[in-house]
């Protein structure tokens, strides 16, 4: 009983000197895995206006609008549930998922990506990037 009372004391003290594995996010960014689904991006040239993506979307996040004499989807990131169904169904591979995870807006309307914004790729991350492998070393998981 006494051992069970005192043991956590030493265990806690021991952990106080272990390395934390927090990612200090705005300064250091975690590199996401290859498959990670951030948000959808559109390649306008490939789009054939077939409406498949609009039909399959469970949350009605996509909507057809006219853009440069062509019907292309418009994207509402606020409704999107990142399920990848539209990317899979697209016959010409015009839609794809990118690693952008930081999108916040002041209004709900700001989440609506008009086709020109929808088709833009975000700027590559210039800041310090940390990978899961480095984190694993900190955690003590990696064995070589």
């Amino acid at each position, binding site marked *: 009983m006494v051992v069970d009372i005192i043991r*956590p*004391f030493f*265990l*806690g*003290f021991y*952990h*106080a*000197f*272990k390395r*934390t*594995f*927090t990612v*200090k996010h705005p300064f250091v960014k975690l590199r996401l895995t290859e498959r990670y689904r951030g948000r959808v991006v559109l390649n306008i040239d490939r789009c054939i206006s077939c409406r498949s993506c609009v039909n399959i979307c469970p949350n009605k996040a996509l909507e057809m609008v006219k853009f440069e004499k062509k019907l292309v989807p418009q994207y509402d990131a606020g409704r999107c549930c990142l399920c990848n169904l539209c990317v899979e169904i697209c016959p010409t591979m015009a839609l794809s998922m990118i690693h952008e995870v930081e999108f916040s807006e002041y209004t709900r309307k700001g989440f609506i990506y008009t086709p020109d914004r929808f088709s833009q790729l975000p700027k590559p991350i210039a800041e310090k990037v940390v990978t899961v492998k480095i984190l694993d070393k900190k955690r003590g998981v990696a064995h070589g």
Partner: protein
Amino acid sequence: MILGLSFPQIVELILKVLIFPGLAFPLLFAMIVIWFERKFLARIMLRIGPLHVGPINRTGLFQPIADFLKLIQKEIIVPDNANKFLYNIAPIAALIVASLSVAFIPYALKPDGSYWVIYYTPLSLLLILAIFTARPFIMVAAGWASNSKYCTIGAIRAALQLLAYEVPIALSLASIAIMSGTFDLAKIVEAQSSIWFMILQPIGFIVILIAMMAELSRRPFDIPFAEQEVVFGWPTEYTGAQFALIMVSEYFDLCSVTSLITVLFLGGWSGPAIPLLNDISPILSGIFWFLLKMAILTVIIIMGRGIYPRLRIDQLLDAGWSVLIPLAIIQIIITFLTAQWWLPLLGGV
């Protein structure tokens, strides 16, 4: 000559009241301990803790100050149908009561043989006991005045908790008083000049450490504040500056409790003279040892929050009456029986 005091005496008095151990010291103590607690607990939990505020990069040293500044900017909300007088007076009263006991604790020995203490009285031990006992009444008053169910439950829990820790504390102090033959804290320290009471009275030390943790409502005894059960206990309704005062008073209390245990069991300021400090003044050397002992006690008390789950109120009462009080009584009996061996060891008396 003002009020019968000479100029150096007035300077010393101002120094004592305003800087150490008066106003500035508990504030600084509170700031450092709040920062340390957050940082240290964060490290136990494998987190980082406060990071950005402060002079040294990535330490968050000024986070408590930033929090305090934020809190005093906020609106003070008084709940409907609250007893406004009691509700508003309680945080101030808590702060005053918490900072009062520091005035009677001697922190160092001056070269002329007197003590570094704001107000010297031969009955300081009894006075401090009285001050500690006054605190739960403020909690009950505040909890009742808030006119909220959670506050009332928290206040009643605080009052119940008093029953658990007050008697063991009194009994342990009695044991100390018997051993040293005085209620004077300074005399108690002098009695420990050759051997600490912690070694002579290990059971009493453990009893008083646990009981004082309950007195401070530190985990595992933070039952009046139990977040998961009663939201935040008796101060639930307090906001802004009033909340800040209550929080600061908690740490003032921690300051006086660790000081008291240091004086009673760890030999107060006694310790080998530090060369550099001793050259300036022997008072500083004594204060250094005093603060070091306080710091170790503080770490031990803070650790409780990182490693123990909270007890239930009936379990605490059970532990208080069936474990701590018998232990304290055993300590008194041992003190009586072994008087012939330890009496020659004590100095000063």
